[in-house]
């Protein structure tokens, strides 16, 4: 009698649960991301949208939690040999690719090999690697020639480019070219539907029913990544105004980034909640290879002439969403410091004028290419121009579309022959935490690019940072790096901005999402 009752209750419970999950599964989320996706390979593209796409489809071996500590993700555990030369990783049970084949250690090895060919942090790790061993299907070893302090941090890298584990046959594609849609196969919480991908219109992901989230709650990029919606569509609506209108009318559920100027439209709407989605650091970069910025004193004058406050005000407007931060490292992070930046980035036109005179500036125009089609970057051009001109520089703006910026910046020529003198962009906060993760901080005279800075001392300090093994040592070196920066002008921090998104109140994040991820997000 009792057995039957229990079975009855069990059946009811099951029915209820499946009904509930049926409800959850019937959900579709329509999201307007900050840009459309053209390239599907997170290792080859440096665009944030591709990084976000990467985290949908692929998973990480190890990952950072919200306290910035490395936790196991696809790995169930790892061990480090006493001499710190061998790292052994053991994968969790039952991990599968979207096509049903199991994840093996060969896949992991191939993915790491591809990663270290291209990513700046990976490139830094590469020379220390002696080799790999696939002990069995679930276990593999990474062997080093000498100890390297940041192995785990490099393997847990979440952004630009994220260290993602791909199937061996995908990871063996050359790292010089992006993979195509048919190779977007991962083991992550969502599956990319290549047959429904309409470039320029929408990207479709569906929940991976075979994904096995970890049992811990989600934290940062680590923990259990539970997909709580069945289907997600990323819609491409290039006009921010139109996207916001679609949101207020319920035609879409979320707009990833709402320009600050348009926030008044959604702040008053009771059905919409506003979320800070990410923070970014604006920066400038001078071209050391050609006049006028081949002269270090001219570079310093520019850094004095630029005015962070004015730039931020011009681009963002609302002071709630920007912050003046003279540090190369994101303010509020472990390494942030004011060292070396007193008197800089304040728009001190008079002092800059004097510095220019002392440097013997001959009037060579500063050519600034900038993208007119990105509202987060477009105003920077005219703003920088005015500030530099007030200091006595001659400035020429070169407006172009975002796609053309890349090839233009790559041209190593005099500005008058199609090169450039100065450009500005921004990094997501997660990428602005240390001296080694950003490509623009590479000052190796032979391998640096996009500005071609060449400073042995700066590079020496970066190396020292990578080898430093205590937090205090790291902080000290980071401070020295920044002081050196204002002496030679590798990187011009132009302030921080918070990018805000808006979503329908029916949506709710169950944890503090590190970037725009779609696990842990439910729709009622």
């Amino acid at each position, binding site marked *: 009698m009792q057995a039957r009752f229990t079975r009855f209750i069990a059946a009811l419970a099951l029915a209820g649960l499946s009904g509930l999950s049926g409800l959850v599964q019937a959900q579709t989320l329509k999201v307007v991301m900050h840009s459309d996706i*053209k390239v599907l390979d997170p290792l080859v593209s*440096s665009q944030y949208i591709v990084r976000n796409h990467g985290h949908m489809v692929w998973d990480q071996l190890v990952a950072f939690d919200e306290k910035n500590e490395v936790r196991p993700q696809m790995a169930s555990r790892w061990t480090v040999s006493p001499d710190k030369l061998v790292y052994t990783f053991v994968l969790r049970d039952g991990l599968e690719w979207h096509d049903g084949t199991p994840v093996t250690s060969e896949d992991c090895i191939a993915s790491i090999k591809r990663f270290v060919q291209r990513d700046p942090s990976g490139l830094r790790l590469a020379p220390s690697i002696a080799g790999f061993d696939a002990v069995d299907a679930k276990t593999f070893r990474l062997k080093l020639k000498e100890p390297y302090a940041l192995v785990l941090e490099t393997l847990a890298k979440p952004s630009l480019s994220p260290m993602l584990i791909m199937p061996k046959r995908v990871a063996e594609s050359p790292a010089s070219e*992006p993979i195509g849609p048919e190779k977007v196969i991962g083991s992550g919480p969502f599956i990319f539907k290549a047959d429904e991908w309409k470039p*320029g219109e929408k990207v479709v992901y569906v929940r991976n029913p075979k994904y096995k989230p970890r049992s811990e709650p989600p934290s940062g990029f680590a923990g259990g990544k539970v997909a709580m919606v069945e289907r997600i569509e990323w819609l491409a609506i290039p006009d921010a105004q139109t996207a916001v209108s*679609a949101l207020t009318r319920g*035609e879409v559920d979320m707009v990833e980034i709402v320009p600050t100027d348009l926030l008044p439209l959604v702040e008053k709407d009771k059905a919409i909640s506003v979320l800070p989605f990410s923070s970014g650091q604006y920066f400038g970069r001078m071209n050391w290879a050609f006049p006028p910025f081949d002269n270090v004193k001219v570079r310093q004058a520019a850094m004095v002439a630029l005015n962070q406050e004015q730039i931020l005000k011009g681009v963002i407007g609302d002071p709630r969403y920007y912050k003046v931060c003279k540090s190369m490292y994101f303010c509020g992070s472990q390494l942030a410091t004011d060292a070396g930046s007193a008197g800089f980035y304040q728009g001190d036109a008079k002092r800059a004028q004097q510095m220019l005179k002392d440097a013997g500036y001959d009037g060579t125009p500063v050519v600034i290419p900038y993208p007119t089609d990105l509202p987060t970057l477009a105003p920077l051009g005219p703003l920088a121009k005015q500030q530099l001109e007030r200091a006595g520089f001659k400035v020429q703006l070169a407006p172009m579309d975002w796609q053309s910026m890349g090839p233009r910046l790559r041209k190593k020529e005099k500005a008058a022959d199609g090169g450039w003198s100065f450009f500005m962009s921004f990094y997501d906060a997660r990428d602005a935490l240390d001296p080694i993760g950003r*490509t623009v901080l590479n000052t190796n005279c032979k391998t640096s690019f996009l500005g071609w800075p060449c400073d042995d001392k700066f590079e020496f300090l970066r190396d020292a940072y990578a080898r430093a093994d205590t937090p205090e040592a790291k902080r000290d070196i980071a401070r020295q790096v920044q002081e050196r920066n204002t002496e030679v002008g590798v990187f011009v921090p132009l302030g921080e901005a918070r990018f805000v998104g808006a979503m329908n109140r029916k949506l709710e994040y169950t944890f503090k999402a590190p970037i725009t991820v779609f696990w842990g997000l439910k729709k009622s």
Partner: protein
Amino acid sequence: MLSFVLRRVLAVIPVLLIVAVLVFGLLRMVPGDPAAVIAGDAATNEQVRDIRERLGLEKPIPVQFAIWLGRLVQGDLGQSFFFKKPVADLIAQRFEPTLALGVCALVLAVSVAVPLGVLAAFRQGSWVDRLVMGLSVMGFSLPLFVLGYLLVYIFAVELEWLPVQGYARIAEGFWPFIERLILPSVALSVGYIALIARITRTSVLEVLNEDYIRTARAKGLTDREVLVRHALRNAAVPILTIIGIGLAVLIGGAVVTESVFAIPGLGRLTVEAVLSRDFPVIQALILLFSCGYLLVNLLIDIGYAFLDPRIRY
């Protein structure tokens, strides 16, 4: 008649060839390098060169043209540099929205403009006539995107009668499909209406001033009979002409309209392809548009032959 049609069809081919050469040559002069854009910021120059090789950009230009033309004749439009999808797929995916938009705008334009023009002609000199003429001048003076935003503001944002943006495929339901097309079609058709209304008015006026119309009226035919039996038939030729010529206006306008209303059509695809230097897509699209334009005008030419036996050149 058949030989006339055949001759006209054959005359199109050299024009298409010229278009192909023009477009191809134009693109190869473009300073932006698609290989560099594909390779991404952190790529080395060798990696960029590798990609150029793979895309066939290192070969001499006439060779590239011959290869492309050869593939084209076999029906292969090539592969997009960026999306690694066949160009034909991309075009097929975006074809429906532009076609729907164009047809709606065309139908709307003709059904509004012709009656307006006729009305103005019959009531020449009256306030109706002046109103139509005045509105038509304003119609083709107003910039399309300003009009688009105005319509969105009034009808979608303030009155909330219609959706703000987007496109719903007809397979997803007729009403969502139509309601999203209303505002963009109206915006797009305004310039077209202005043009057609004017030509209609003038042509009908010309016919009305002919002697045989006076005779017809003297015989006692009503206005409506005059219109239907004589005026329209004889005025049809210039009206058809302007519909054909105006198609180029429509295509150009579609590019802007798709941008304002976030319609994922061929117009937007062209702009995106130009911005990313996606040569195969640009080539295929411009060729496609030119083809369409020539085809429509061809049909119109043939239509003339039916309407006006005198035209058989």
